[in-house]
């Protein structure tokens, strides 16, 4: 039992401290949105709200390829999320619940690949993608994100999961594939939600890989386009901030609705290290 009085000087000091931290985290984003409505050439605190306009937004939509970039980001991210559920689930199930020769050595290889940062394999991956004729394709942006991390995560989850339920399914004369889809997959729901959120952020914010293999404007994702926007219009602050605000909206909206799962999902990536 806490018997302390709640409103001690310590409490007020802590309150000020966390309020400052929260403000410092949020204010830059508020500033981003405010600047996006202006055509300021000199930046300052003093916003003239009467001069706010949507000019920058209409420029982003009309003159830049924003809709194309948005479409590319959405397609790449959605397909990556779906595949990163299906393919690792299957492998994780086999690793967790089936016996086969060389299983533990095989899984060691999976774990070892987790220690390879994607930047290390960038150059050979570029050659492989080029040799496969996949330059400037969605496929090339999607496939490398389906890695051992999902397998590792789901296997951890399945390991703690009793075999008896599966045996019950077997008695009912369930086929292996049907049992996986009807019994195992529904039980993995919570871990899959975390994995999807983690994958969503990774894919949406991915930069170096799409920069290297998808430079053509018609396949460029939003994050790559943002960097281009900044280098092409460096002094048009309002325009750059309008593009940035729009690119931030999808992850931000999902974050607002799925906060708890979001935090869990992203914190999971800590295991990856």
């Amino acid at each position, binding site marked *: 039992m806490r018997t302390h009085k709640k409103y001690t000087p310590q409490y007020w000091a802590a309150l000020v401290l966390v309020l400052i931290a929260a403000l410092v985290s949020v204010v830059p984003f508020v500033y981003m949105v405010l600047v996006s409505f202006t055509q300021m050439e000199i930046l300052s605190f003093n916003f003239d709200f009467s001069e706010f306009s949507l000019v920058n937004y209409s420029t982003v939509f009309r003159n830049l390829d924003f809709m194309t970039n948005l479409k590319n980001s959405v397609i790449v991210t959605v397909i990556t999320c779906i595949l990163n559920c299906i393919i690792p689930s299957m492998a994780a199930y086999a690793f967790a619940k089936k016996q086969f020769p060389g299983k533990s050595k095989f899984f060691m290889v999976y774990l070892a690949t987790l220690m390879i940062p994607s930047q290390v394999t960038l150059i050979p991956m570029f050659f492989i993608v080029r040799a496969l004729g996949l330059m400037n394709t969605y496929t090339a942006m999607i496939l490398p994100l389906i890695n051992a991390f999902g397998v590792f995560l789901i296997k951890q989850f399945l390991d703690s999961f009793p075999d008896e339920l599966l045996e019950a399914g077997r008695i009912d004369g369930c086929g292996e594939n049907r049992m996986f889809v009807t019994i195992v997959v529904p039980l993995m729901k919570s871990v899959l939600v975390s994995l999807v959120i983690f994958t969503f952020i990774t894919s949406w914010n991915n930069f*170096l890989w799409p920069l290297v293999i998808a430079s053509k404007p018609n396949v460029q994702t939003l994050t790559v386009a943002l960097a281009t926007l*900044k280098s092409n219009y460096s002094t048009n602050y309002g325009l750059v901030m309008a593009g940035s605000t729009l690119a931030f909206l999808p992850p931000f909206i999902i974050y607002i609705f799925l906060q708890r799962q979001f935090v869990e999902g992203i914190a999971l990536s800590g295991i990856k290290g």
Partner: protein
Amino acid sequence: MPKPKYKDAGFAFAYILPSFLLILVFSIIPIIMDVGLSFTSYNMITSPEWTGLDNYKRLFTDPYIGASIKNTVIFTFVTVPVQTLLALVFAAVIADKFRSHFGEAVKSAMFIPVIASMVLIGNLWTIILEPHGIVNNFLGLFGISPVNWLGSKHLSLFSVCIISIWKNVGYFLVIFYAGIMDIPAELYDAADVDGAGTMQKFLHITVPALSSVTYLVVTLGTIWSFQVFDLVYTLTGGGPGLSTQTLVLTIYNTAFRSYEMGYASTIALLMFVFVLVISILQKKFLAKED
């Protein structure tokens, strides 16, 4: 009747195959190719030429590598302690004083920078740190003259560190907070009975109980230091001079601006060795903990 041990082997292999093919093509084969390429000179126009250890020798005299390593070391020694400490303190304060909707709101607010891309953060902070931007305006209120945050050789790396800390604290906060929630409440209750103060409880209960979490946070922060790219690409391009040059930026420029694919692969392997050593040290430490 005993089941044959490997009855399901065919099924298992079929289920693993798609995932394994992807890992083979995008992890295992590339790391082997990296090693092969590192002994060659290859400009993508003429075929690769075997150059033995030349690329490795060049690592030692390349000013970009020297600058990248120096910057990474400084970056690590600034960001890792600061972000770890801030995250730990805020997690402890929120867990101790604000287990309420208010505390949740603070955590949510501090997590917002985590979900934004580094590219977006780079764009945003370029504008915030402009010579006439809001940070300098704010400092002007106290009579401080404008600071060239990103354009000065002496400050640019420091600015990149601050932004990186700003982005990552919320992430580590969540990890620490989860760790604190796992500490048995009885420990604190017993300390209360003994009349321990907040600070004593923090130092003698919270900090020791979080040692493996702290180790994870420090290791992750260190590995991330070796991977900095998006932020310096958008903020400074590695400059002014080589003041914010990083290993990944050097790999990118060497490969995709100078088309020295062989040498760039050697740098990538160097980076891999650094990250591997840190990961192995972490695994060793955690094994000892358990």
